[in-house]
């Protein structure tokens, strides 16, 4: 006997068909509003604030387990780790000193050649809250947002290289689109040759497209950001070339590559500042270029 299953003698509101029609119309309106016009950003922000305590709560057992694990490490492991870290720091310090002198030289060379220096060193550390469970997009949610003045467009790196870019900022969290996402492209440069290319995410991986068939690319080459987009700082490692296929049928080579950063792993990421002081783009000439038969004196732009 299932009492809830017995038919009701009283009419209860709208019929299921009408309800379905209303809900479907609403969903389609939402879909179009969100995908075409981006109308739902404020609603999403509000709801994400409501979700924040839930996310924290569900993260709590994991964080607590990690804390306990950290607390219970033995002294010997700590000592060993300390030793390793100290040695690493020595090596790094030596490297930093060399780098500083090189940087100094570089800066003076730049000023000599009257080039503007474009450097921004500040960055903020963020923890990954959770990964979006939408298989169509490759995104992660980090625990910093408008409260720490993040804004959309900032590059995100980890200790090994570029991870992605902030695409949506909510009051307490931010959404990072990974470089493996289909909608993200990164202008890169092959470090060995200086050849420029654009790295496309294709959902789960990255590949450099539209490189001519004679381009000098070899497996093992490192691709770093070229910095010509005014967004990513130059020289951040992005991906390794794993395979190069030269197919005589196509005009381009097929370059398969693997991200250097732990795009799908890791707990902490670093949010960098966007490149600043990018000179304004040259204005396009308003008039079309003069035709061949015209004399130069007729043209007002000349």
């Amino acid at each position, binding site marked *: 006997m299932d*009492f809830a299953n017995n038919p009701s003698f009283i009419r209860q509101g709208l019929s299921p068909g009408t309800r379905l029609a209303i*809900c479907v119309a609403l969903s389609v309106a939402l*879909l179009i509003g969100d995908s075409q016009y981006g109308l739902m950003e404020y609603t999403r922000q509000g709801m994400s604030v409501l979700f924040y305590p839930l996310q924290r709560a569900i993260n709590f057992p994991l964080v607590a387990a990690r804390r306990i694990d950290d607390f219970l490490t033995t002294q010997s492991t700590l000592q060993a780790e300390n030793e390793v870290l100290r040695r690493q720091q020595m090596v790094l310090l030596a490297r930093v000193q060399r780098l500083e002198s090189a940087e100094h030289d570089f800066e003076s060379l730049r000023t000599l050649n009257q080039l503007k220096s474009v450097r921004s060193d500040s960055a903020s550390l963020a923890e990954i809250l*959770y990964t979006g469970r939408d298989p*169509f997009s490759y995104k992660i949610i980090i625990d910093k947002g408008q409260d720490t003045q993040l804004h959309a467009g900032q590059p995100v790196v980890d200790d090994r290289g570029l991870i992605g870019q902030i695409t949506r900022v909510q009051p307490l969290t931010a959404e990072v689109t990974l470089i493996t996402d289909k909608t993200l492209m990164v202008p890169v440069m092959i470090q060995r040759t200086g050849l420029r290319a654009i790295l496309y995410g294709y959902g789960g991986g990255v590949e450099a497209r539209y490189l001519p068939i004679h381009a000098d690319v070899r497996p093992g080459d490192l691709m770093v950001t070229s910095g010509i987009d005014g967004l990513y700082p130059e020289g951040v490692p992005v991906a390794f070339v794993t395979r190069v296929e030269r197919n005589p049928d196509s005009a381009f080579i097929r370059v398969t590559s693997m991200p250097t950063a732990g795009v799908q792993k890791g707990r902490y990421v670093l949010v960098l500042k966007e490149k600043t002081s990018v000179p304004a783009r040259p204005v396009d000439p308003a008039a079309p270029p003069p035709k061949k038969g015209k004399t130069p004196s007729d043209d007002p732009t000349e």
Partner: protein
Amino acid sequence: MSFDRPKELLKPVRRRFIYLSFVVAILIDLLPLPVDTALWLPDFIALLILYWVINQPRRVSVGTAFTLGIIADVASTGMFGQHALAYSITSYLALLRQRQLIMFNLGQQTLSVLALMLANQAIMVATRMATGSAFVGWSYFLPPLTGAILWPLLTKLLLLPYRSHKV
């Protein structure tokens, strides 16, 4: 293991219990799990909607499914309306045949739930492709399978608090 529906007298289901089950499902959705688990982890919100639509059609209906769909949209960082559309249509399909589904034994119910969950995924794929995403591959249809396998267990679990032992 018998697949027959329990024929015993059940206590009436509290509204609080329904809400609580949905909250747990949303929490599972928000768990920071490794990316690979999304390949096989079933959509618990959809499973629970189906369960309550089949067992308590007067309390949980198309409107509830739609609301939960909106929540799932935000939680999964997907597009607004994608889960909402799929859940409302699926719950309506379940509601159409609810009188039949409730009489099925667990084995038959599992098969119908599999079909409904597959329809759910198909609607989501269709919406995403209509808004310009590429097809994600057939592995997207694996979670409904695991979800259907879990259906008998879920039914037994959700019936546990409502067995009246003192009869």
